[in-house]
């Protein structure tokens, strides 16, 4: 019982953090003043006064069930894992004949979907807990994650639930039904742009070998553009910063045009095919020229996963260069174990992390565009590392269809509120070897400008989340 109450408190806190950051004060006040309780399903019938009661003891199966999409006020919402009505005396509050809420004659309202355990499963990494399968970079593969296989990674289900919940609270307060339009409450979309600075000079041996390899593969695949590789090998040999380090400055110039800022996650430490490919002088050169409002974070090197010695060595090396503490980071290759890595990050002073992303697709790995404190199931405790899942990155913005999907997601999120994380690597921003990416970052920023998104810093998010969760 203590445990379920503790988890309920945790879920309520994460909801409050999200509302406080993504919605205006009126929404937060409405949430704070609402009689919203988390109770075991069997206790709901015995409630004697009107409230919103969210059942907190219905466990989900590992595979999501009853996935349903509904359109409310011109916005699409996705629901899954249905809860049966407690009894026939409960009224169904429906959209298009599908129940979203149940209400009894006392005025107790409960969701018709198991939002509580949907959130708990996502924020405590149920998919990772349920299987030990991992890919060669020790990440849970897309095909082994039932949530993603079901297509739910394409939608921010958490953000949608909060929007539906707030609409219900607003409607209940003002007596205008369950689904009023609450767009006035939604703050402009917040964005965190970032760049993983893996390769700063394009003349390292791994990059040069990679060009030869792509040239050979190009012949086999009929992609003859890759045959131009000797030109680029030569070009970067004489001008190693072009398309790499220069692109970092160029992205900053472009961000300034839109009034945005970004985070540079710096890779340093041990070298190798998957490791740090340049020398430290390149990192120093880059960092000397980074303007004031652009943040520096640690790009956890490939060898640092659960290795405290190499993690600390890398972090100390970067801190020595910039002369201040580094408290934000993302894992190189997204090589990250959400069940164990948070302990390591906490130990070494990382307070903001963006490693929760999907290597093979853009979307919402834990069903959210926002920040949350992960729930560490092993010890039943809440991590102190504020986490912003990575949703969109360059490798999955390389076609018109993918850019269109990005634009659609941003449009959707601007209606329901959220914090969006976008990653662009320097080598992908503008590189003559990858002409498909020409102008893509500009389009990404233009899309964000169109919805009047605002750039926010990790510090702002940490402060807000800390204040809202009472930590």
């Amino acid at each position, binding site marked *: 019982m203590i445990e379920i109450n503790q988890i309920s408190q945790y879920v309520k806190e994460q909801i409050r953090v999200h509302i406080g950051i993504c919605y205006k004060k009126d929404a937060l006040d409405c949430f704070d003043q609402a009689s919203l309780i988390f109770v075991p399903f069997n206790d709901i019938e015995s409630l004697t006064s009107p409230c919103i009661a969210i059942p907190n003891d219905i466990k989900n199966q590992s595979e999501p069930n009853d996935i349903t999409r509904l359109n409310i006020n011109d916005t699409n919402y996705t629901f899954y894992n249905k809860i049966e009505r407690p009894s026939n005396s409960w009224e169904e509050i429906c959209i298009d004949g599908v129940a979203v809420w149940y209400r009894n004659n006392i005025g107790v309202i409960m969701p018709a979907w198991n939002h509580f355990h949907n959130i708990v499963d996502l924020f405590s990494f149920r998919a990772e807990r349920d299987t030990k399968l991992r890919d060669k970079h020790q990440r849970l593969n897309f095909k082994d994650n039932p949530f993603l296989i079901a297509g739910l990674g394409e939608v921010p289900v958490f953000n949608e639930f909060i929007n539906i919940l707030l609409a219900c609270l607003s409607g209940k307060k003002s007596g205008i039904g369950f689904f009023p339009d609450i767009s006035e409450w939604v703050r402009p979309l917040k964005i965190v742009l970032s760049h993983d600075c893996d390769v700063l000079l394009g003349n390292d041996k791994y990059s040069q070998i990679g060009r030869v390899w792509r040239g050979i593969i190009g012949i086999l695949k009929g992609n003859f553009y890759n045959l131009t590789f000797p030109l680029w090998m030569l070009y970067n040999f004489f001008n190693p910063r*072009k398309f790499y380090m220069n692109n970092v*400055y*160029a992205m900053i110039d472009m961000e*300034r*045009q839109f009034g945005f800022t970004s985070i540079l996650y710096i890779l340093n430490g041990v070298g190798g095919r998957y490791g740090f490919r340049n020398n430290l002088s390149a990192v120093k050169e880059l960092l000397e020229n980074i303007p004031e409002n652009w943040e520096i974070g640690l790009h956890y090197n490939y060898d640092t996963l659960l290795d405290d010695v190499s993690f600390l060595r890398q972090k100390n090396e970067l801190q020595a260069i910039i002369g201040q503490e580094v408290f934000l980071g993302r894992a190189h290759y997204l090589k990250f174990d959400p069940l164990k890595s948070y302990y390591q990050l906490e130990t070494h002073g990382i307070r903001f992390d963006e490693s929760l992303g999907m290597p093979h697709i853009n979307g919402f790995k834990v069903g959210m565009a926002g920040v949350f404190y992960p729930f560490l199931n092993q010890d039943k405790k809440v991590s102190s590392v504020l986490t912003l899942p990575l949703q969109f990155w360059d490798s999955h913005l390389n076609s018109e269809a993918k850019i269109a999907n990005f634009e659609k997601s941003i449009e959707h999120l601007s209606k329901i509120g959220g914090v969006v994380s976008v990653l662009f690597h320097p080598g992908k921003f*503008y590189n003559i070897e990858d002409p498909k990416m020409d102008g893509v970052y*500009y389009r990404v920023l*233009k899309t964000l400008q*169109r919805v009047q998104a605002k750039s926010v810093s990790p510090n702002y998010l940490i402060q807000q989340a800390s204040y809202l969760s009472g930590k």
Partner: protein
Amino acid sequence: MSVIVRLATKADSKDCNALHNKAYGVARNLDQWNWTFQNRLFPDLELPFIVAEDDGKIVGTQALIPIQMIDNDGVYWSAKSEETLVDINYRGHGLFEKMYEKAFEVAKKSNVQSIWGFTPARKAFLRVGFEIPMDTSQLFKPLRAKCVAVLLSNGNSNSESVRLKDFFKKILFFLVGAMASTYSNIRQFFTIILKPRLEIVELKHLSSAPEQAKKLCFDFIAHWGGATIYRDQKYLKWRIFDNPFNKANMIGAYVNGELVGYCAFSIGEDEMGYIVDIIVVEPTNSDINSRNIIHKLLSTASSRMSDMGACGIRGWNMTNHKFDKLIADEAKKLGYVSIDRGTAVVLHKSYETNDLRNTIEFENWSVSRIFTEGRNG
């Protein structure tokens, strides 16, 4: 049809913006509308925006954007003609003339010395008394093979019969672009390696409008003569740093700690770069001259736009102003070419005003892309 012509109020902003968005098929938002037409540079003129209204529906718009100019006699008010629009169903009924009657009243009342703008609608503006001193023309630096296609893009025809023609056109543009960019890059390469590095000129990014802007502008006119937009700190804050469309990057040139010039540049749609503005004065107590500073600013801006992925760079160059001629000269050494392709410059300064002063002929204005409405920075 009982159309009334009146000054707009803030309550009209949504409808005025909608008319514009419908006419041009764009999605300008209200923040952008407010920034453009309520720049608050002119304290007494809240909204110099004229609308034609038929039965509560906005069917025509004509805006004046108050802009201060400077010449050797000092600073004076002018206005930029903007947002000239008449609903297609209301054309041919003299609405444009009626809106301009009102605009001239506003100009007289506010002692605006001239109204100027850039437009393809030559006849309409000539009819209401404007002159056309020249057409805009530009400097263009090809950076990549696709630059010519982008520069000349006018939308593709869907007709089957022209597909083959379009295909050959594309090939031709690509080849011309490839040759032009090769020439341009080689010319820039040799110019840069042959020039001394000019360490004494220090370039710094400007993250806000510099306080010294006013002095720079006065020094500019004192040295180069002619007339130009008066770019004080307030103006630059509005035009560059608060621009909700595209905030151009701005680099300042310093000699011995003194701001002696700046260059504003940006990248816009279609991967085209723009030299938005450049101002340089002759440094005092230094061996460096303004030509050296222009070179350093232009070559740095060009390299940075190239790194941003620009396929070409455009800048305006049209008048006989001494400084503009010098810019063109230095730009050509960096591989820029002149292109006479643009729209009409329209200028009116003979309407009745309360306190008429002499103003400089347009051919002696120093004109950069800062004279545009600012969508590309």
